[in-house]
């Protein structure tokens, strides 16, 4: 009786272990899948902000280099996942996420700085255009007045000349 109970117990443990192993594999795969998804999302967000920073006039060369590093890690994770070799998937995806988050933060700082800089640049250019055009018109008007006065003086200074009417 006792022996039978032991056998049943061992059989149950084995069945539970088999069931657990069946469960663990998909959970592990879904963990890898989730880390790839998270890295993908981080990189997409970082790139969107880098693009915005570039549109605002920021220099994004360094940020693109870092994004390329993150992209390579994510691609390596994706490739390993597709090949069925799950060992380095999570670490690569997490490293990609870390780099992308850092790039995202730097891109936001650059975006804010670039927006302020481009606004300043715009106002400076506008002031230069308005002031420059105004000064130019005023100077030209003064030159014109002087020219007109000289012209009239010259006309007044002319001596009348008697011309014989041939007709």
């Amino acid at each position, binding site marked *: 009786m006792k022996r039978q109970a032991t056998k049943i117990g061992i059989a149950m443990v084995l069945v539970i272990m088999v069931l657990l192993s069946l469960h663990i594999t998909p959970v592990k795969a879904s963990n890898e899948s989730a880390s790839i998804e998270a890295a993908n999302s981080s990189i997409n967000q970082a790139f969107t902000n880098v*693009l915005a920073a570039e549109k605002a006039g920021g220099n994004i060369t360094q940020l*693109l280099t870092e994004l390329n590093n993150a992209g390579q890690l994510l691609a390596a994770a994706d*490739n390993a996942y597709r090949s069925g070799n799950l060992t380095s998937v999570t670490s690569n995806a997490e490293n990609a996420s870390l780099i992308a988050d850092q790039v995202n933060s730097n891109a936001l700082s650059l975006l804010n700085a670039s927006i302020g800089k481009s606004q300043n640049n715009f106002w400076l250019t506008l002031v*230069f*255009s308005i002031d420059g055009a105004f000064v*130019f018109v005023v100077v030209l008007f003064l*030159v*014109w007045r002087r020219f007109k006065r000289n012209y009239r003086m010259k006309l007044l200074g002319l001596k009348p000349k008697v011309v014989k009417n041939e007709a």
Partner: protein
Amino acid sequence: MKLENARIIFVTIGLIGVLLFASPTIVLLLKPPAGQEFTELYILGPNHTFDYIPFNIKANVTYLVYLGIGNNVGSPCYYTCFVKIGNETQFLPNATLGTASPLPALYEYKSFVGKGGTWEAPLTFQVNNLAFTNGECQLSGMTINGVDYPVSIASAWNSNATGFFYNLFVELWIYNSTLGTIQYNNRYVSLFLNMTE
């Protein structure tokens, strides 16, 4: 010179001057029309030329080509290149409909290329298991850039071109920041491969 003529000259100089001073602001406000926007996708041989592009393929031999991208879109781009393989009759991307191939991707590249920039990366591939039986070639194992992939693709003997042909092709996808997803760019390059014993 008549005074009226001088007035016309002064007014003209005034207008030109105002335009010159306003031009920096006009440049900031008006964007010039963009030219044709496109991305180049290319494959070069091992010498970075069109020479020695692999064609006759043997099992367990590594072949090298270079994959390249040129960004002429006018802004930085986030590219994904999917490497796929199929036989002669399997679906390639449809250039008319602009749809990607439904075949599963084996390998992928991700790259961020600045405005006007280029990107190039090696693409090494090796077929691991080739079996030739009853006028059919069975490919069941491939290594791309050092990563092993289990594949199972059969190709029938092509009596016209005399060979067992496969297409190794690379599709170009671009990230659309408005939609928040990657989209097929209707561009692909392919290597026509003849599997030999």
